[in-house]
């Protein structure tokens, strides 16, 4: 296995693992996750539960696909787009001076927004390489 393929598989597995883990944590307590989303004050009230009910399963599904090596480009593109949305939400929180739990990995962790942004930037890098190296990594 070439170094390039090894790097690709590392990015793919890390990205899939991160989102599978995050999705499972959120899915374990949907109400708490809805509360985290409500803290952002971005959505109408009813939508917070709707997003909390569906976003974790999307993350889990995309994470599992990445771990299995199926639909890798679609899953990594989707997770990159989701991460861009998360970054926008966190930036809006910073700009409005809100102090909230980001809910990135379920509730309770409460990292600083800057740490969450740094983590999201890392996820974008993983998604970028997973997406673009997919073809070169095919046997």
């Amino acid at each position: 296995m070439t170094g390039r393929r090894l790097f690709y598989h590392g990015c793919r597995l890390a990205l899939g693992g991160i989102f599978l883990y995050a999705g499972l944590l959120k899915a374990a307590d949907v109400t708490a996750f809805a509360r985290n989303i409500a803290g952002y004050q971005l959505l109408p009230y009813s939508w917070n539960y709707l997003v909390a009910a569906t976003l974790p399963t999307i993350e889990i599904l995309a994470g599992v696909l990445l771990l299995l090596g199926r639909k890798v480009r679609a899953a990594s593109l989707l997770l990159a787009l989701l991460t861009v949305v998360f970054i926008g939400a966190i930036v809006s929180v910073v700009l409005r001076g809100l102090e909230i739990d980001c809910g990135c990995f379920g509730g309770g962790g409460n990292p600083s927004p800057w740490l969450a942004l740094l983590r999201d930037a890392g996820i974008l890098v993983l998604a970028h390489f997973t997406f673009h190296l997919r073809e070169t990594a095919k046997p």
Partner: protein
Amino acid sequence: MSRLVNERLTRTLLEAVVIVAVGVVVGLSVNHQLVLDDFAGRLAPVSAPAPRSPARRMTDPAKQPPTAQFPAPIDLDGLRAELQEGAVAVDARSPEAYREGHLPGAQSLFLGEVRGEIGGFFARVPKTARLITYCNGYGCPDAFDLGVTLLASGYRDVLVFEGGYPAWRDAGLPTTQGAAP
């Protein structure tokens, strides 16, 4: 070449849409009761638009759905109208924070000591009262948690004011200082 790239990108986007669709269907299937309750106004920190005036209040206490496990939200205008109608504001913050400033007429029921305090609260506030909990604003979950506790304790008409004391104070509305009676 360009056409091939476009086709591949389109296919990738379609696959991403399918992943989202499957995720939404599975998520809604697993959490369908929660979402139905939400859109029926039977729960939330997050549910249908908050009642803004007494004319839009959801129900009277006797008609409140017995399945309500979560307090519905209320906004600032709704809170002011409800307080004028006789609703009881319940402060979930610490006694120290309450002493420094609270909504006029608010009952203090610190979430951290709710087990010890709930007996006295029962004696002061009838179960038929409309309660509106609040704490330190959107980042503070205590008002919601207190609302859940009050609903589990037999109160059937509990709302939560998520803007909390900061939103009330910053709107220039009157506040009261002093310890709970």
